[in-house]
C-alpha cells in the first residue's frame, strides 16, 4: 500500500460515488420515469476504481452494458450521466445513447456497449492508436465473465498479443452472465487461465479488494506503458442488483445478495483496511459518502428538470457530412 492520502481519498470517493449513483438509479428506475434497460454496477466498484485510478485522459477504456461504474471511475461527469440516463438533451450523449451506450471520448471513455464482447476488439483499436501515434497511452478493456465466451473477445486477446499492443483486459467475474453461472458457461471454469493461454500474463485477484485490484493493475499498466505488451486481470466480485433492473433474480440462492452486502462489500473492506492501518479517519470517509450522495441527488434534480431532445435533434449526429 504505497498510495498517498489523496489517492486513497480519491479512490474511496469514486467508489462511493458509484455506489450512491447506482443505488439512486435503482430507486429512480422504480418510479418508471427512467426509460430503457439499466444494468447496475453496485458491488463491483473496487474493480473499476482499482483499474482506473492511475489512468489519464489520454488512456482509453472500453466498457460493457454495465458501464456506469467505469464511466465514473474514468472521470465522466455525474450530472451529464444522470441526464443521459433520463434521456435528456444535455445528457452526456444528448439523450441518444442512454445507459447502454453512455460514452465520453474526451475522457477516454469509449462507450458502454449493448453488444456483449464488442468492446474487446475496440480496445485493441485504441491500443493500436496509442502505439502508432506514440501517445504513451494505454487501453483498458472491461469484459464480463459471460462475455469471455464471445468470439470477439478471444480474437481481441490474440490480436493484442500478436501486435504487442498496450492493452489491459479486465475480466470482471461477478459469477453470473445474465442468469447463467460461470461454472456452467466457461468450459474450463478458469477465465484467467484460458486468457493466459493466449500468450499474456493474467492474474486472478479479489475484486472486492480495491488494493488487490489496484496493485495488479499497476503492474499491467506499467507493462503496457513500457511497450511490453498486453496483459490482464481476472477480478472476482458479485453484483448486488439483478442483471437488469426489473430482474427478479430467481437464479440466486437464498440470502445470497444479503450475504455479499454484509460480508463481501468492497466499500466495507476498503474502510476496514484504511481505518485499521490508520491511513484515513471515519470522518473522511463519511464526508466523501455525503458529498457523493449530494452530488447524485443534485444530478437527479437537474435531470428531472432538464428538457428532452426534440424534433431538431432526431436527424443530427448520424454522419459528420452526408
Amino acid at each position, binding site marked *: 500500500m504505497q498510495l498517498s492520502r489523496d489517492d486513497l481519498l480519491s479512490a474511496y470517493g469514486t467508489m462511493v460515488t458509484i455506489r450512491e449513483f447506482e443505488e439512486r438509479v435503482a430507486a429512480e428506475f422504480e418510479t418508471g420515469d427512467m*426509460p430503457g434497460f439499466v444494468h447496475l454496477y453496485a458491488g463491483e466498484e473496487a474493480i473499476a476504481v482499482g483499474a482506473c485510478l492511475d489512468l489519464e485522459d489520454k488512456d482509453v477504456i472500453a466498457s460493457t452494458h454495465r458501464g456506469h461504474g467505469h464511466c465514473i471511475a474514468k472521470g465522466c461527469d455525474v450530472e451529464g450521466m444522470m441526464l443521459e440516463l433520463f434521456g435528456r438533451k444535455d445528457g452526456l450523449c444528448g439523450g441518444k445513447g442512454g445507459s447502454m451506450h453512455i460514452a465520453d471520448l474526451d475522457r477516454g471513455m469509449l462507450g458502454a456497449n*449493448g453488444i*456483449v464482447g464488442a468492446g474487446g476488439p475496440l480496445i485493441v483499436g485504441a491500443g493500436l492508436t496509442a502505439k502508432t501515434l506514440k501517445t504513451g497511452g494505454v487501453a483498458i478493456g472491461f469484459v464480463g465473465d459471460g462475455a469471455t465466451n464471445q468470439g470477439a473477445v478471444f480474437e481481441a486477446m490474440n490480436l493484442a498479443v500478436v501486435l504487442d499492443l498496450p492493452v489491459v483486459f479486465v475480466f470482471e467475474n461477478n459469477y453470473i452472465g445474465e442468469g447463467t*453461472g460461470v461454472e456452467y458457461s466457461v468450459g474450463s471454469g478458469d477465465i484467467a487461465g484460458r486468457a493466459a493461454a493466449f500468450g499474456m500474463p493474467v492474474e486472478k485477484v479479489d475484486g472486492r479488494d480495491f488494493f488487490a485490484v489496484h496493485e495488479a493493475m499497476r503492474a499491467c499498466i506499467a507493462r503496457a506503458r513500457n511497450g511490453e505488451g498486453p496483459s490482464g486481470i481476472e477480478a472476482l466480485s458479485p453484483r448486488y442488483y439483478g442483471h437488469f433492473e426489473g430482474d427478479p433474480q430467481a*437464479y440466486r440462492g437464498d440470502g445470497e445478495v444479503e450475504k455479499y452486502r454484509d460480508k463481501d462489500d468492497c466499500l466495507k473492506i476498503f474502510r476496514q483496511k484504511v481505518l485499521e492501518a490508520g491511513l484515513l479517519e471515519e470522518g473522511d470517509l463519511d464526508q466523501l459518502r455525503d458529498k457523493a450522495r449530494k452530488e447524485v441527488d443534485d444530478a437527479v434534480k437537474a435531470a428531472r428538470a432538464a428538457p428532452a*431532445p426534440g424534433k431538431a435533434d432526431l436527424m443530427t449526429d448520424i454522419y459528420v457530412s452526408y
Partner: protein
Amino acid sequence: MAKKTIREAINDALRQEMERDERVVVMGEDVAGGAGLDGEEDAFGGVMGVTKGLYGQFSAARVIDTPISETAIMGMAAGSAATGLRPVAELMFCDFMGVCFDQILNQAAKFRYMFGGKATTPMVVRTTYGGGLGAAAQHSQCLYGMFTAVPGIKVVVPSNAYDAKGLLIQAIRDDDPVIFFEHKTMYDLADEVPDEAYTIPFGEANILREGSDVTIVALGKMVLEAREAADKLAEDGIEAQVIDLRTTSPLDEETILESVEETGRLVVVDEANPRCSIAADVAGLVAGGAFEMLKAPVKQVTAPHAPVPFAPELENLYLPNADKIVAAAKEIAA
C-alpha cells in the same frame, strides 16, 4: 377457444412441437436460466419468458442453455439441423445477428444449393426486433430485410398471437431455415388462439380489411398501426385495404399486386430504416408489376435513415405510426 398472449401462443407452439417430435430442441442464452447457480432452475425461461416451463417438461437435454456465444449457437443449430435435429434457436435480440450472421448467411442458407440439394436444414431462429422500449440503437433494430435478401432463408414476421402460433409451428415443420421475428413490445397482446396445433402456410399474406381506395401493406407491429390508420381514414371516407405480409420470404406478390390493381394506390409501412427495406422492396415490386394500374406515387412509411434513438421523445418521433400512415395515404388518396 381461449385468449392467449403472443408469449403464450409461442410457448404453446414450442411445447406442442416438442411433444410431437423428439428431434425438436430449443437452445439459446437463458432459454432456461439458472445453470451453474444456486437459485431456481428455469429461472428465466428466455429473457422475455417465452420458453418458460419447457425446461421442466423436457429437461436440459432438449432445452439447452448456452454460453454467450451466438456464432456457436447459430452454428450448432445449423449443424444439428443438417444432421437430423430440428432445432429452434433463440437469438435474444435480432441486433445480435451482427456477431453471428455468417452461420445463417453463408452456412444454413446455402447448404442446400451448394450441396446440390443433398442437405436439408430444418432450423428456426426465434428473435426479437423493434423499438418502443427505449432500448436504443443496438437493441431496437428491424433486421428482417437483411435476411429477406438472402436466398435459402424464409422470414416470418407475425402480427398477432393466432398467426404467431400457426406460423411458428409451420416454421418448425418446415424443412428450410426460418428466421422468426417477434416484436419485443407485443408479447402481452392477446388474441383467440386454438389450443390444438395448427399451421399457417408461408407466402400467404392476410387481407385484414377490405377497401378500394388505397392499399396499405404492413408487417409485424406496423400492422397494428396500419389498422388504426385505416380506421382513421375511414372516418374521412377513405377505404383502405390492409394487407399483413406475415412472411417477407416467401413474399405473397400476387396478393399485393392484385390489391394494388384494385385500389391503384399503395402505402407500404415498415418499422425498419428505409434503404433496401421491405418497404422499398414492395414499392419496387409494384412499380414493376402493377404499374399500369397505379394511379399515384407509391408511398413508403418507414423509420428515417438514422439509428434508433434512446430518449422516448425521440423514439416517438422516429417510429412510424398510424398518423404518419394516414398522412401518407391522404397525400395520394385524398
